[in-house]
């Protein structure tokens, strides 16, 4: 077996998976909706395992989140190509039993960029610095993107409450 080039101390993949699986799943639930998050989770970690020899050992969380975000984007593109795209968050609509449905529905209406920033911050719990490393921008820019996403979310919900 040829030994792949390792750029940092090679953490056994199982430990990498153990450390990142919960935040990645949380991110994907917010990014593509709970029902499709598991498929994207599988695609994310299979891709991570294939590319594991190129993992950036300094920013493992940003590295795996970058892959997860790409898989979420692929997922949305594949859905958009289908004849009858189903809004993946609508089945979580507000009901008395699910008072938080309005939050999920509003997250589903954000632009991809805003949703990614909000999901990295509030679902996956990343620091602004890690969000910057994931989105390829500065920490300050990441902070702005999260704030923009949050205010877009607020506007969406306020608008719906007005029309309700």
């Amino acid at each position, binding site marked *: *077996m040829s*030994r*792949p080039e*390792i750029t940092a101390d*090679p*953490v*056994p*993949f*199982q*430990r990498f*998976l*153990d450390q990142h*699986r*919960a935040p*990645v*799943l*949380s991110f994907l*639930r*917010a990014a593509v909706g709970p029902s499709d998050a*598991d498929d994207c*989770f*599988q695609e994310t*970690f*299979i891709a991570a*395992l*294939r590319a*594991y*020899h190129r993992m950036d050992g300094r920013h493992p969380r940003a590295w795996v989140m970058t892959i997860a975000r790409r898989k979420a984007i692929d997922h949305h593109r594949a859905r958009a190509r289908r004849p009858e795209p189903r809004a993946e968050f609508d089945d979580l609509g507000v009901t008395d039993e699910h*008072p*938080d449905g*309005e*939050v*999920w529905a*509003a*997250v589903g209406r954000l632009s991809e960029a805003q949703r990614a920033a*909000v*999901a990295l911050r*509030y*679902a996956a*719990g990343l620091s602004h610095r890690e969000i910057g490393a994931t989105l390829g921008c500065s920490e300050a820019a990441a902070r702005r993107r999260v704030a923009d996403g*949050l205010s877009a*979310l*607020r506007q969406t*919900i306020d608008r719906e*409450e007005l029309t*309700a």
Partner: protein
Amino acid sequence: MSGIDAERITRVLGADTAAAAAEASARLVERADREGLAEIGYATLETPLGVAVLAATRRGLVRVALPNERLEQVLEDLAAEVSPRIVELPQRLDPARRELDQYFEGRREHFDLALDWRLIEAGFSGRVLRQTARLPYGVTASYGEIAQRAGNPRAYRAAGSALGRNPIPIVVPCHRVLLSGGKLGNYGGGPEMKEWLLRLEGAID
């Protein structure tokens, strides 16, 4: 309707996914194995002497870590020496776990397991371990005898050091190699374990 703030968003989106993620990652590991991406699979094994770690490549059993070794260190060494594509994959170790269980219960005298010798050095060290692998159950040899069978009768110290680095103990039975004069000598798993194994096999009283 309640308004929306960071706290509420965190509560809704940041709900605990630990249990669901653990299930999803178990499915991931099975898929990785089916797709040939699991270069090393490992599992733990309860033995009468503590918890051992077993690791196998697709070729076969590559490592047996005795209970005095730390799991994390074993995995880190495998990551550095073989591949970091290591996952917990008990099903790959099922044959080894079954045969070792039987061995520890005194119901098995030799192993029918595919072995991966990649952690065993070429040259004299490798010959020492291959000769050791041929020692039958309950039969012992001295370091000097093994050195001789490996082609260099005077290299009994080198033979001892090769045995001390045996990556697949028990299955490659380095516990059957003793000091001349019948003293048990060193063992990677500790001298008490060597004595326990030799007693199990009826090699000593």
